[in-house]
């Protein structure tokens, strides 16, 4: 038997010391993991344990100038199944078939799919959701949330827009004011074990949703409704393709109504408003049909403005001093520019006339002459000064830009055609805004709907402000334009818009669309009242009317009718 010698003991201590060193090393490793890496791993673990369900935030309402709600929310339910919690599979499948109208195969697929939570159907009516909840089946979840709801269905459809499956805006104000309206979604967090079973003892934590703010807009439901009726009437009478009507306050750019018939049903935005059958369409054809239906012609599309553009030519000429009211012109029925003979709409000619009379007659040679006197440089200077070359900045998505000749390509012929509103394209909103700015004393306004942002208790959150550019024309020119346009209505081509006891200013237009050979026209009328202090400006554009197509004949009377009805309602006098 050997003895336990000193070197044995020494080596024992060495082994021990080595072990302790290694243990200390491991302690160091643990400090690293549990102090410095703790947050990282804890977060990863939490992601693993938590099942998250969103609670949709209530989207803010869109409210008109009178406080009428135009876009609201309605409670709907989302039905989900949780695979691991289902006890009676067949009962769940039968219930889904009965209540949600699913076929058996689809229902079975949903129920048998191994996932932590499987969404079966969204946007289920609340009564159906309540019924499903009353079955009391394990593993079936009924979550309530909100669906966008438009009480007036088609009213101002292309202005308001609608929302998609996740309650996000798709077109119109719903897109533009997404950040204001959407609110912040809440969450329900539940902790589960590895099989996905919720742990009741930990319970669920809730992050409450924050409702979106309400958007108060300048649009007036009554005015909009009346304008829509008028647009519909004239569209049917003239078998037109489309009719757009814009009513705005020329002083501040607030839009009272924006009509684009045919409108569509906001509560069923994917149902075509024509009788077309979508079943045979390819996806692309369907998408194109929808896009066409959703287009807001007032802002998304440009057109040749025709004679209404003479307002801009006149204002530029007056401002530059190349023409005065009493300058005289002679119209033989055409004007020769370079090698072209450009006709007046009155082939027999207007004869001798002053500038005022030329404007009242909407005489093309007069305006060609003014345009030529201005010259390309001056003309373009005013286009820029009036804000015509830029977008208006309206608070709707997809505004189209002005399509104008490049300055270097403009010769005398082009200059002549521009001066009476042909050979280029602008949007109706651009025309209405530019004319507003010319007749309101010379302040370029930004057309808009949004006025205020308030919370649901009515507390003011934000007053929306818009850019204004002063002195785009002088006060004097502005007043002269008011006078000219009043005369156009009281005794000129716009006389069909004349209302006894009121001062109405305006200008008619009839333009042929491209290609000219198709003989399709756009007739329009732009009017405002009262002339010395304009409060309402309206623009009606009738696309491809059948039969008589002169703006003065078919468009002006519609604006007259609208003015007659809405002016007393709005309390506008004079």
């Amino acid at each position, binding site marked *: *038997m*050997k*003895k*336990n*010698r000193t*070197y*044995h*003991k020494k*080596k*024992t*201590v060495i*082994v*021990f010391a080595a*072990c*302790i060193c*290694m*243990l200390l*090393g*491991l*302690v160091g*490793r*643990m*400090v690293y*993991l*549990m*102090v410095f*890496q*703790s*947050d*990282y*791993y*804890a977060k*990863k*673990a*939490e992601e*693993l*344990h938590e099942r998250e369900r969103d609670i949709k935030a209530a989207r803010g309402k869109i409210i008109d100038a009178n406080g009428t709600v135009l876009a609201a929310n309605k409670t709907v339910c989302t039905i989900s199944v949780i695979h691991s919690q289902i006890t009676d599979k067949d009962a769940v499948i039968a219930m889904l078939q009965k209540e949600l109208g699913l076929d058996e195969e689809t229902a079975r697929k949903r129920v048998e799919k191994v996932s932590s939570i499987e969404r079966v159907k969204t946007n289920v009516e609340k009564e159906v959701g309540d019924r499903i909840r009353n079955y009391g089946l394990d593993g079936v979840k009924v979550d309530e949330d909100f669906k966008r709801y438009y009480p007036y269905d088609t009213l101002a459809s292309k202005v308001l827009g609608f929302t998609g499956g996740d309650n996000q805006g798709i077109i119109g104000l719903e897109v533009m004011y997404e950040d204001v309206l959407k609110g912040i979604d809440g969450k329900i967090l539940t*902790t589960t*074990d*590895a*099989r996905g079973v919720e*742990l009741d003892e930990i319970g669920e934590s809730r992050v409450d949703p924050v409702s979106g703010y309400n958007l108060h807009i300048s649009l007036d439901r009554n005015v909009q409704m009346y304008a829509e009726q008028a647009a519909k009437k004239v569209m049917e009478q003239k078998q037109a393709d489309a009719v757009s009507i814009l009513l705005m306050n020329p002083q501040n750019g607030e839009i009272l109504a924006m009509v684009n018939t045919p409108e569509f049903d906001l509560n069923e935005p994917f149902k075509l408003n024509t009788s077309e059958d979508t079943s045979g369409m390819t996806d692309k054809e369907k998408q194109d049909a929808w896009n066409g239906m959703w287009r807001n012609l007032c802002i998304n599309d440009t057109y040749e403005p025709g004679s209404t553009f003479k307002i801009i030519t006149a204002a530029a000429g007056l401002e530059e001093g190349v023409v005065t009211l009493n300058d005289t012109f002679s119209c033989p029925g055409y004007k020769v520019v370079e090698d072209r003979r450009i006709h007046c709409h009155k082939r027999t000619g207007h004869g001798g006339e002053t500038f005022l009379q030329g404007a009242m007659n909407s005489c093309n040679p007069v305006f060609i002459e003014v345009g030529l006197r201005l010259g390309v440089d001056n003309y373009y200077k005013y286009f820029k000064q009036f804000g015509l070359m830029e977008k208006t900045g309206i608070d709707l998505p997809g505004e189209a830009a002005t399509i104008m000749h490049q300055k270097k390509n403009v010769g005398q012929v082009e200059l002549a055609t521009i001066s009476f509103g042909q050979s280029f394209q602008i949007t109706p909103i651009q025309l209405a805004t530019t004319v507003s700015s010319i007749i309101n004393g010379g302040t370029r306004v930004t057309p808009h709907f949004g006025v205020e942002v308030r919370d649901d208790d009515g507390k003011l959150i934000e007053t929306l402000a818009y850019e204004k550019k002063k002195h785009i024309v002088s006060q004097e020119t502005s007043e002269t334009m008011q006078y000219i346009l009043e005369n156009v209505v009281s005794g000129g081509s716009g006389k069909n818009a004349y209302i006894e006891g009121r001062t109405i200013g305006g200008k008619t237009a009839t333009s042929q669309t491209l290609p000219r050979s198709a003989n399709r026209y756009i007739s329009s009328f732009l009017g405002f009242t009262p002339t010395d202090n304009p409060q309402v400006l309206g623009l009606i554009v009738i696309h491809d009317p059948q039969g008589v197509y002169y703006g003065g004949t078919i468009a002006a009377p519609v604006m007259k009718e609208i003015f007659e009805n809405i002016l007393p309602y709005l309390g506008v006098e004079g």
Partner: protein
Amino acid sequence: MELRRGFPGPRQTGSDCLQKDTEPKRQADELLLILVLFLVVFGLIILYSTSAYNGRVKFDDPAYYFKKQLFATALGLLGMYISSCVDYHWLAKYAPWGYLASLLLSLAVLFFGDEYNGSKRWLSIGPLSFQPAEFAKVAVILLLAYVISNSKSKKNGLLSMGKIMLLILPIVGLVGTNNLSTAIIILGIAVILIFVSNPKYLPFIWIGGLGIAFVGIFLSMESYRLERLAIWRDPEKYDKGFQTIQGLYAIGSGGIFGKGLGSSLQKLGFVPEAQNDMIFSIICEETGLVGACILILVFGLLIWRLMVIATHATDLLGALIAIGIMGHMAIQVILNIAVVTNTIPNTGITLPFISYGGTSVLFLLSEMGLALSVSRYQK
């Protein structure tokens, strides 16, 4: 027959037992006993906390694992009491027979063993199952302590060391076929015992170098072993790193003070078989860095006590038994914690007294009894 030559029979050394300095001189080491009892109680609490979910899910009984462990612990405490009363000199005489038995049992596992999680490690006797590899560790400690302390050779050369290593190769091979980790532990214990018994240092540096080279060749021989290395370096990238990553999530989410006893979420099926090898990660999650450090401290104190017993032993036999037990304890604790914290590549090693496993706790407690027995003969 060659093996037989290495076995010094009991007859040859029978007279040693009668030497007068082998009479027990004092009480068993109380501190060691207290530390062991602390670990056993702490282990049972943690085991219940960790295994309740798995027990409920698999056996509809949250206490399923706890009950089995409690039974094994009771047996183990009995084993500890008996072995602490037995004179280790007397017991050591049967070491060769014990070693032979462990060889036969390990052989039996190869033919009649139960497979669980893809490894054949258990022998069933009625309702009880038994893991021969756990017994093999004790058998090897006793055998080597006995052989080294009784060798007549004065030489301390490589040859005698090699002879001793040859002795244990059969058991390492047998155990290693199904349980590589235990084979490594057995080898580790052997190396420690030879190191302590030999006055030289230099040869061990050679052995260390050879060992590293061997491990390198061994690893590169099979691609799945290299894959294990890759998983170790970036466990989040590999599906097989799942267990490691879940363990790290548990450790990390424990933070400094832990979530509180019973509050682990990772034990709810995320860490697979949380009551087994990975139990330390749940300790970290529930008791935090503080709790885990206290546990490491207790293990450290236990190893220190075993060292004290070894250095105070009256003879080399007692010293080597205590050192073997100390080595066994230290290797398992260090490797287990190193694996759970992903300090080294994953290999299945249980945490002494804490991890679920009846055979393990039974033999660990019996080993502690042996150490207590050695402590009774201290100078």
